[in-house]
């Protein structure tokens, strides 16, 4: 017949169980604390007037916390993409001489539609909505 545990053993077991149960919310709180709360920027930003958008040029502007590349095509049409390369996140630049978008970190090249054409990037650049109202060009969060 199994020996009945004495009072000290029972109290010890209760103590261990209590410590184990308490540690779960403590550890969970610490883990939750170190993950920052999501603060997605929602809004728009005026980047200039239509006259200021010179054909075949590109510039990087900030929308919320993220960089956005605004390109005016050779036809004068403004387009915008998230400026972080879809490979490893470096900020890309517009190459006027080739009419493409280039990331110097690992050599990824995107065409003017934001599609990857060479290099290690496999996903297209994220398109950013662009609006023209009363001669003002603005970009907005998707």
């Amino acid at each position, binding site marked *: 017949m199994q020996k009945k545990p004495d009072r000290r053993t029972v109290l010890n077991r209760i103590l261990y169980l209590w410590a184990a149960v308490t540690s779960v919310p403590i550890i969970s709180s610490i883990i939750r604390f*170190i*993950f920052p709360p999501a603060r997605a920027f929602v809004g728009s930003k005026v980047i200039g007037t239509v006259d200021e958008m010179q054909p075949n040029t590109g510039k*990087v502007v900030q929308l919320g916390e993220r960089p956005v590349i605004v390109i005016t095509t050779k036809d004068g049409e403004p387009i915008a993409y998230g400026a972080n390369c879809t490979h*490893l996140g*470096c*900020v890309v*630049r517009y190459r006027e001489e080739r009419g493409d978008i280039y990331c*110097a970190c690992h050599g990824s090249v995107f065409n003017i539609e934001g599609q990857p054409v060479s290099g*290690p990037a*496999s996903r297209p650049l994220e398109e950013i909505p662009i609006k023209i109202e009363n001669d003002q060009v603005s970009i907005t969060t998707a």
Partner: protein
Amino acid sequence: MFYINRATVVEWFRNRLPVDTLMEHLTSKQVPRHRHSIWYYFGGLTLFFFIVQVITGILLMFYYRPTPDHAYESILFIMNEVRYGWLIRSTHSWAANLMIGTLFIHLISVFFMQAYRPPREMMWISGVVLLGLVLGFGFTGYLLPWDEMAFYATQIGTEIPKSIPIVGESIMVLLRGGQEIGSATLTRMYSLHVVVLPLATLLIVGLHLFLNQYYGVSTPVKTTKRKNSIQFFPNYMLRDLRVWLIAFLALLSVAMIYPWGLGEEADILKPAPEGIKPEWYFLPLYQTLKIVPPRIWYFDGEALVNIVFLFGGILLIVLPFIDRRSRNKERNIFIKVVGLIILIYLIGMTIFAYMD
């Protein structure tokens, strides 16, 4: 008049501290001598550079300010206005690289000497963990000057885990303190660099050194020992200190002749400059990511590279349990050849990245 007898003071301490037991242990410990003994110095050298890092790091903390608005400016202040600031910073940066270099050599020598065999498995595991911590020091410290290279190296480094399925995005956010690199990233890297990693390193170094004292130094499999091994204290310790002195003079020389530079201030809107590369110890991973195609069969190329490197790290940790031959004190040529191929790959990729 109040008079203190020196002998009484010494006796007081001897009765309260286990000095005699410690001395007895140190003088009875022997360090074997054989044709590979020279590699033993690299563990000690790594410890020496770590001590230099702690001292110079504390000094830099007196002036460094971990915010994007002030970080770069405070480094300029340290380098241009604080007396010997340039030398302290240069020594810190050089010692960091030399520490990683000697740690790699130490790890490689332990690997090829099969010194991870029983009963030293925990020494090996703690050593590999220390390698991870030291690379963590390199990665977190690299961002602190907040210059262009630092910014992009961190941008790439924190983006790398993103391709890992399920947890990748969370790891990236955890490291950055948000979706983008910014002030939250800088404070996170700073607190990791000056508090979390040093505490963890002290703990693991303590364990590593304790085990080293407890089990003594390993002799490679089937290596003939010379008859006269060296007494650890004071003979081997003095030899070690002599090597430390040479290393200290070499470190000061390179820190003075080639002072560590500082690039342009980081600008989150500036496109990545041409020829940007991470520190040399991350080049094999960087170059592999650069040459790997976007898709390999049905898999994402980037994710595959990350998983392979991660798997390599896990294999390194469990090596003592894989190498069954070493348990019987036999040479394992297969493991050594695999290790050599990986080493040649890593060195080759580093050279390729420099030339690319």
